[in-house]
């Protein structure tokens, strides 16, 4: 029964995002946040390796070929910088998909926080003094998220803005 170590802290300390556009409550040390959609986002092209994916990609700007814009996330009640800290102001969330669809969602506390686990970068192993002995795969908990933005309603049509 092989065992894999699961480090409870990331190998490299988080570099806090310079700016996090989300409300204060949703901030995590790494800047990661959770968004849940009842349904899926159908991408115009499936994520493909850059070599053969590039021709089909919809983007005009070649430098942007590694991501596809979906739309916008809007906190309608949040108008000023101070609102970002006020929990009552970001209960409601809109997710605009493209120009004509809008999903209404809410910020919800997770019943049990979720740890985000990823494979530890093997090149960082030397720096990790107490556990140099492991010679296999290592996992780490990158961050713990306690809130999620949940979109459980079906999209509604909106006119383009």
């Amino acid at each position, binding site marked *: 029964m*092989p065992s894999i170590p699961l480090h*409870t802290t990331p190998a490299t300390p988080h570099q806090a995002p310079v700016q996090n*556009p989300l409300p204060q409550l949703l901030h995590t040390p790494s800047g*990661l946040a959770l968004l849940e959609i009842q349904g899926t986002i159908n991408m115009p092209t499936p994520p493909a390796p850059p070599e053969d994916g590039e021709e089909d990609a919809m983007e005009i700007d070649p*430098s942007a070929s*590694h991501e596809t814009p979906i739309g916008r*996330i809007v906190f309608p009640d949040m108008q000023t910088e101070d609102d970002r800290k006020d929990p009552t102001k970001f209960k409601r969330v809109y997710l605009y998909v493209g120009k004509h669809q809008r999903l209404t969602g809410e910020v919800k506390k997770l019943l049990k*926080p979720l740890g*985000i686990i990823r494979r530890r970068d093997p090149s960082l192993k030397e720096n990790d003094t107490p556990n140099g002995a492991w010679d296999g795969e290592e996992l780490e908990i990158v961050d713990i998220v306690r809130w999620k933005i949940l979109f459980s309603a079906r999209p509604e049509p909106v006119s383009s803005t």
Partner: protein
Amino acid sequence: MSTQFTTSIPFSFSHNLAPIRLLELPPALLELLSASESPPILKIKASSGATSSVHSTDNHAVLCTPTQTYSLRQVYSSNSIILLQPSVPLISPPSDDNEDEDTDPLAFLQPSMGLKAVSTAVSYMELVPTIHDAHELLLKHIPLYHGSFDGAMESPTEKVPKVAILSALPISEGEFETAWKKLNCFCCSAGYAHRPSSSAVLAALGEIFTCAAAESFTLSPKDGFAVEALVSIMDDDEEVAIPQGLVDAAVAGVCEEAVAETGRWKLDKAKCASYVGRALLEDWQSKAKGDMLYVSFISRWKSSVPEECVALCKLDCIKGWYTHPTPSTIRFVSGGTPIPAKSSSPSAAAPAPVVTAKNKWHEKFGKGKRR
């Protein structure tokens, strides 16, 4: 794309999604992770194809904290779970680095940050407190040591080091250690793990008590005695072939630490009487001799304990560990609380019956085969 700073966040989808897993953290684990500055490293143990046939119960992964074990269960969700990370919106030259978007010096110049989906998941892992019974697993996986005190040590068929057993079992180190001690397990001088049979323990105890009496070595000094001192007087006796590990385990069975964590022991009369009584009954049962005559049990019991314990050899102290099939006989029942005398609280006793039932079947089966 957006000009409003606070309310409208550009949202894009990365094509290079990072593989991640989500793990639901139960309160106890969350506390462990957030309480201390340097939380302990957890272990995920997964059975590989090669070993899964050996242990039928553990064909899935477990997560071990130092003292607890959780089963990992994959929970699928019909919802898409998307992991967002602040990133520079698309209109600007995006950085190629997926991990640390914001080291990009250009980020400072951006009027607004966007969000990028960097990972998706359709499932998360749920942690279910363990279903494995450390006691039972150890019973199964640590080879029995019968001992032989006429000079030659009976060599067990399997030789496995302790660490190998620990790593092979889906239980945490803390649970392993507790069960290890409860079963008097020990490592021989070659480093292999053994679980002594009751008769081996009894023989070792007999040696200890005899030697102590012969050398007038007191087993209950005020500040306790060291096992090394005991072993050294036993070494004088040339017939002795008791591994030191077994002496350690036997001493731990009948003694209490004089001062906690010092390794100095002091005879606990009640514990000793109870321990020896149970071992005698269990030994008798394991040899499949049928039920023991009550009178002969009491006389054996009294002759197996040091003098100062004789008065304590009453059935009260092995309550729950025996039945009287007939008024004149006594039979071993492995139903009592595993740790004698002290933990007779119902909460500690609760998990025991499960093991018992299984053990009994196991033993019955074994007996049937031998006949």
